[in-house]
């Protein structure tokens, strides 16, 4: 049985889809069988970020409505053999996502894949709660910015109350993925530091993804950043994150940290 991960955040635009694609690809690049599921019905984007937008025929809603088989809707990545995508519907009504339908799809995916990564829509509505409902592990994506941290706190509350695990009295495994981090600005005191965010949210740190041009460049060409530029700072950070996800104990550092002249003398390590 595979593990179900929900990539969630509360606030939109913090990097859920980018991170879902990058983490999924990184796991698949290591040989694991991975499917990334887009739960953002109505506003799908995962297909675009993964470069499969022109190959979508059937989607998650088609499968749930019984109009297509799961195998017909799954899109295999052209670059990595063990990476699959289950796209969201673009035009349909969100209410077509039924609780039973989602349960059946996740159940079938779990049986066939090592990892099922659910890319959650933003917000705390039905779509987001359905995406997290069956998760074994939650990755909370947060920017070092007040509105993002606040909404993440809210989502952590939901993860502890509205998921199957919570209802069964189990503890949901939660991890923080801090994205768009700029070590220089944090050092200067104009961006929340890693320690600040960790203290406020108090869930373990999975990784720090540095603010980088490479992320936008990768999404421009429709490739997860771990595939587009394997040696880039964000890619290395995602590779480290999946090692931690698999249980390895490796220290978290800020990748690609550029230090200014003053940083060299007065700086302190951010993690």
């Amino acid at each position, binding site marked *: 049985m595979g593990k179900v991960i929900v990539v969630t955040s509360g606030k939109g635009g913090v990097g859920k889809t980018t991170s879902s694609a990058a983490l999924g690809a990184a796991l698949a690049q290591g040989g694991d069988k991975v499917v990334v599921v887009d739960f953002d019905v109505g506003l799908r984007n995962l297909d675009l970020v993964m470069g499969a937008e022109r190959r979508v025929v059937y989607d998650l809603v088609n499968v749930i409505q019984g109009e297509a088989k799961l195998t017909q809707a799954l899109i295999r990545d052209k670059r990595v053999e063990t990476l699959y995508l289950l796209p969201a519907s673009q035009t349909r009504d969100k209410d077509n996502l039924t609780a039973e339908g989602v349960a059946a799809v996740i159940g079938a995916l779990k049986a066939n894949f090592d990892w099922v990564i659910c890319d959650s829509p933003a917000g705390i509505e039905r779509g987001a709660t359905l995406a997290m409902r069956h998760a074994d592990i939650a990755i909370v994506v947060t920017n070092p910015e*007040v509105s993002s941290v*606040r909404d993440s706190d*809210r989502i952590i*509350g939901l993860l502890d109350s509205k998921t199957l695990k919570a209802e069964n009295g189990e503890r949901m495994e939660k991890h923080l993925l801090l994205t768009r981090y700029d070590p220089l600005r944090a050092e*200067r005191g*104009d961006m*929340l530091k890693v320690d600040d965010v960790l203290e*406020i949210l108090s869930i373990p740190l999975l990784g720090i993804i540095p603010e980088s041009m490479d992320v936008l460049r990768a999404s421009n060409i429709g490739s997860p950043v771990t595939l587009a530029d394997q040696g880039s700072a964000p890619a290395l950070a995602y590779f480290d994150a999946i090692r931690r996800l698999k249980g390895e104990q490796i220290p978290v550092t800020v990748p690609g940290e550029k230090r200014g002249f003053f940083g060299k003398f007065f700086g302190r390590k951010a993690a």
Partner: protein
Amino acid sequence: MNLFRLFSRPRSAPAARERLQVLLAHERAAAGGDADLLGKLRDEILRAISKHMQIDDDKVSVRMERGAQVSTLAVDIEVPFDAGKKAA
């Protein structure tokens, strides 16, 4: 002049951190949590002081710093110039 700004401009991250701590303490309590220590403290302190002088609700800040061994509680209350007269 980047170097000059480095010294002259106040840093915004500590403000962000402080605002979040206070806000989330309130919100966690509203969501049914039990950890609204800061919120309760703030309300009670406010009530106690307003018995004796008029203070502005917004000018009271209660801040908790949690350390490994010691936590500190900082209460910051701005008392207006003519506060004593009004209540007395």
